[in-house]
């Protein structure tokens, strides 16, 4: 903090360094400090309940449009009954985790950055430190843990709703045969797809909370600083989710093939 970074690379590296230090401090806090149950429940409530609407709508409409589009293509080659299998595989492994995480990043990541950023510019974080409380213990750890619990649950919810919505659209609107569809769905979706989605959403939860908290805690001066922090938290979290998703798909496919 004593030297003012002059160019982009320096700024990027020092940012990355501070981010890693924060994550290391979170891990240290998790292993040495007791996590307050009440703080955790408060955060779980905030993240879980506030995200219901967006997650349900995203899940349902993604499932529906995916079903319709797949059907239009498959119908040409008389593969109608494979439609729902495609929907369920892609919802479980890719679309469910990624879209849920992106929506949660927009809602929860942004509000974490705004909250902690405001606390920083109004000296509340300094006040916390004079009250013998580590900001990581009190502010960051409950948020990170709660997000890593909530995002997988929200993802499961969104996948379920998405597949149900797709089933309704496929069977009742597009007249696909329900019996064969269900058999195909079960044949092509296996536990590896589900596990992949679960692991991904767990990691995405971590990305959302650490990015949001980092941007908030290291926020610039004044209302402008808070505004910046909020936008950047969403942008960086979203980019990190999309990029890591690709590598996670490659990696997890390899790893899960072993079991």
């Amino acid at each position, binding site marked *: *903090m*004593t030297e*003012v970074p002059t160019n982009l690379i320096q700024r990027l590296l020092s940012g990355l360094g501070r981010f890693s230090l924060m994550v290391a401090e979170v891990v240290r806090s998790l292993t040495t400090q007791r996590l*307050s149950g009440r703080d955790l429940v408060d955060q779980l409530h905030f993240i879980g309940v506030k995200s219901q609407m967006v997650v349900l709508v995203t899940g349902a409409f993604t499932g529906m449009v995916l079903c319709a589009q797949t059907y239009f293509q498959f119908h040409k080659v008389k593969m109608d009954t494979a439609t729902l299998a495609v929907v369920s595989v892609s919802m479980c492994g890719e679309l469910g985790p990624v879209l849920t995480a992106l929506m949660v990043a927009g809602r929860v990541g942004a509000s974490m950055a705004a*909250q902690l950023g405001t*606390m920083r510019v*109004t*000296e*509340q974080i*300094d*006040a*916390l*430190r*004079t*009250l*013998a*409380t*580590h900001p990581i213990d*009190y502010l960051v750890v409950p948020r990170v843990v709660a997000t890593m619990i909530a995002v997988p649950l929200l993802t499961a919810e969104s996948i379920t709703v998405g597949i149900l919505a797709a089933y309704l659209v496929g069977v009742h609107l597009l007249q696909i045969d329900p019996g064969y569809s269900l058999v195909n769905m079960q044949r092509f979706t296996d536990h590896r797809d589900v596990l992949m989605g679960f692991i991904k959403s767990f990691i995405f939860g971590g990305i959302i909370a650490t990015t949001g908290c980092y941007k908030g805690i290291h926020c610039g001066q004044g209302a402008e600083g808070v505004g910046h922090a909020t936008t950047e938290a969403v942008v960086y979290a979203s980019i990190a989710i999309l990029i890591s998703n690709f590598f996670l798909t490659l990696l997890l496919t390899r790893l899960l093939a072993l079991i």
Partner: protein
Amino acid sequence: MIEVRQLRKRFGDQQVLDGVDLTIEKDESLVIIGRSGGGKSVLLKHIVGLTPPDSGQVLVDGQDIAHLNERALLAVRRKFGMLFQSAALFDSLTVEENIAFVLSRERNHTPEEISRRVAEALEMVEMPGVQKKKPAELSGGMRKRVGLARAIIYRPEVVFYDEPTTGLDPVVSDSIDKLIVRVCERLKVTTVVITHDMRSMQAVGRRVAMLHHGRIYTSGTPVELMASTDPVVSRFVRGISDEKEHTF
């Protein structure tokens, strides 16, 4: 009990602290005066270890805190209570939760004990019965009182006040000054007050140190400073700006 040695701090190309030497004895009440933007708040943040210095030492009971890590500093800060210039109350918590913050995180106090001590602290700052309010519903003077209650409830050894009376009307200022004196006498704490209010300085200080151009320019009793013939000091205490110097 606190000793600051050759403390230096620079922000960008602005040398805010340029070799500050200051000793704070146990049980004394010290007032630090100095111009707006002169680095008083920055100095205070160094003393409680919120900001790391570029060079120099801050010794608390003989231990150099300038290079301790945050976890080790937390234990040192338990000896300090601080009233921020902006009060810095947690706006998502009620007045009661704000004041009880340290006690409720220490986990060895019963809820009854905590609410009794909160009521006592509020009594002491003459604000009984506001437990359930949110900080946003309070006036500036009330916030400072709550901030003070939060800082003294856990019985610190030293209480720091950053401009406790700035922005308040003369009557409220006077009552805050009396409050500071009362807290100092009743709780037997060391008191450090930053101010540029001369009435306040005379009311609460036994000793006054003046920060000027990043150093402690002079120190003495309030009476000595008020009577000083030194041009810098006398202009400051009488509030006369220098025509040749652009101060804004």
